[in-house]
């Protein structure tokens, strides 16, 4: 019994080995499955359902289905074109300062009978072309500003933070003792809490006792005028951007570093023999070898940037003048602080769509990278 027995025995062992797998499989994966359904899948599905209702966080009344109302309130945008007022002769009426006068925006947004499409909207921004003014109205101007801030934050952070991360990685990509200490130092902010870091930087940015102002004042020998970094609508978001990069760049340094270490040293030796300088070696060896790492880094930074919340909540509360409000900050404001669950859920859905778009772009890019 040599030839036929051998193949017959293997499946039998496997059959013995896997007897009762189904029972144990469900038993051992069971707790995880129950928790995933309760705390991840159910809330995720509910986000979509709640966004179509007028649910309150705590309310004796059952939520009512309101269709796309939340989304119209959230995303409603209208263009209003205003021509200057003219007198009977057709000449433009000028005000005391000599500027053309325009019908007030309120005469459109507060006139439900004649202009139902503009009712309840507010001016988001205005573009003047010639004598005509194009006013963009939005139903929720705060959300629109938050959406723009969030995207602006991502657009600035993504290239800068990945570039600085790569710079740090190139600096510490050596296996010597001293270099290791620098790697550790650059990484320290990553393990710290964003709340702690936000409070520290809020202090550093403060107008009178802030170290940022004293630093600039010292290097310009006192010529620098103190800036209220977080209190000024033009500097507040850039200030948050800088401290966010300061916190997270060490993480991306480590990811770049693991990418750099997959590049075989022989390639650098070959490049060296060919007489390539540092720049040429970077262009022809390092950068092509980092293709997959770079896609991954761009995506993680983008998704993290979209989720901007803690810094805003701790440092600026969305202000000044909504200059730092973000999508997630608005979701928490509406869904939790004003208890408007349906509206908060609608914001969460919009946020998820943003993330999904980024993830789909990532899939495209990685597929191209793999050929």
């Amino acid at each position, binding site marked *: 019994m040599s030839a036929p027995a051998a193949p017959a025995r293997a499946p039998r062992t496997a059959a013995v080995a896997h007897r009762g797998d*189904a029972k144990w499989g*469900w038993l051992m994966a069971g707790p*995880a499955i129950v928790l995933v359904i309760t*705390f991840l899948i159910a809330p995720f599905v509910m986000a979509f359902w709640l966004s179509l209702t007028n649910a309150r966080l705590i309310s004796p009344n059952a939520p009512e289905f309101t269709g796309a109302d939340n989304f119209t309130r959230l995303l409603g945008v209208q263009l209003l074109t205003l021509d200057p007022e003219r007198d009977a002769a057709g000449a433009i009426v000028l005000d005391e300062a000599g500027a053309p006068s325009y019908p007030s925006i309120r005469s459109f947004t507060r006139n439900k009978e004649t202009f139902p499409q503009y009712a309840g909207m507010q001016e988001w921004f205005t573009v003047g072309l010639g004598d005509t003014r194009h006013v963009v109205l939005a139903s929720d101007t705060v959300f629109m500003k938050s959406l723009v801030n969030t995207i602006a934050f991502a657009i600035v952070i993504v290239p800068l933070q990945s570039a600085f991360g790569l710079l740090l990685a190139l600096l510490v990509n050596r296996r010597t003792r001293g270099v290791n200490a620098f790697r550790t130092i650059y990484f320290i902010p990553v*393990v710290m809490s964003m709340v702690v870091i936000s409070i520290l930087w809020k202090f550093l940015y403060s107008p009178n006792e802030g170290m940022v102002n004293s630093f600039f004042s010292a290097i310009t020998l006192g010529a620098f005028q103190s800036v209220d970094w977080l209190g000024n609508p033009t500097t507040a978001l850039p200030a948050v951007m800088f401290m966010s990069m300061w916190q997270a760049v060490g993480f991306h340094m480590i990811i770049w570093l693991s990418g750099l270490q997959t590049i075989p040293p022989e390639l650098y030796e070959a490049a060296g023999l060919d007489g390539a300088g540092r720049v040429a070696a970077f262009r022809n060896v390092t950068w092509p070898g980092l293709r997959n790492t770079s896609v991954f880094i761009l995506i993680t930074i983008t998704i993290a940037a979209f989720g901007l919340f803690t810094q805003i909540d701790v440092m600026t509360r969305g202000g000044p003048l909504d200059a730092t409000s973000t999508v997630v900050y608005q979701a*928490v404001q509406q869904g939790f602080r004003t208890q408007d669950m349906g509206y908060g859920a609608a914001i969460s859905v919009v946020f998820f769509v943003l*993330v999904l778009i980024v*993830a789909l772009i990532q899939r495209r890019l990685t597929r191209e990278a793999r050929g």
Partner: protein
Amino acid sequence: MSRMQRRVQQGDERVFLSLRAVLMIGLAILFLFPIVFMFVASFKTDETELLTSVRSVEAFLPVGQLGLENYQGVFDRVPAPQFIFNSLITTFATVILGLIVNSMAGFALSRLHWRGRDGVLTVIIATLIVPFETIAIPLLFVVIRLPWIWFSPETGLQLEWGWLNTYHVQVLPFVVNAFSIFLFVQYFKSLPIDFDEAARVDGASWFAIYRRVILPLSGPVIATVAILTFLPMWNAYLWPLMVTQTEAIRPVMVGLQYFFQLNVAWGEIMAYLSLITVPVLVLFLLLQRAFVESIAASGVKG
């Protein structure tokens, strides 16, 4: 290559290396100065002195009046030990439960053959794309409606609706982590399958194999998952902000808001920040390698 050329090249090399060193030291200062300031300032007991020190390097030097009064002030102002205890309880409960639940799931999803396994794994991996911020608001809606049953000797079994203001609302939603399961699945797949089959033929149950064969071999992945659970739990802010309402239950990060009510004393704030940050930093410096490798592991899922 002439000697002249070589000397020029060596000179270039030296300039490059010293530029690099200057840049590295400059960056190290940039990353360290807020932390050094925080720690040093926490011992400066004179608030005016502290606030004027920021105009010079004195901000980073232990000069002027020094003492532990700020730390005393922290304990007078807030129940800091309670906050720290709350954070420790919720963090460690999540780490321990997370290790058990996720490793069991990882085991069932990698080493057992059962119908539905691939579907379950696909769904769990798919949830990785959902950021917590998307579900935070509806999750709040869910947890204030969930039942909780507990037992006390005086009143017997009790049923209560709503999870707000408890420890478990801070723990249970974070026990399962798709990424931890993914890490366990990857690791368990790399262990030879012969171990299981030999033990099975000897009559061991699957749970016994998991407990006595697989887990003892899984030190590295257990450390990684523990670190990746520990950090975000200790640093948690958004969720506890929404679900905790009393000091008895609030974790350290939410406790910070008490320092901005009434008069703001920066010395005390720096003392509290040091109190909740320095232990984590020390832990990080001790377990540097494990920390960096774990966090790097979260970056290679791609």
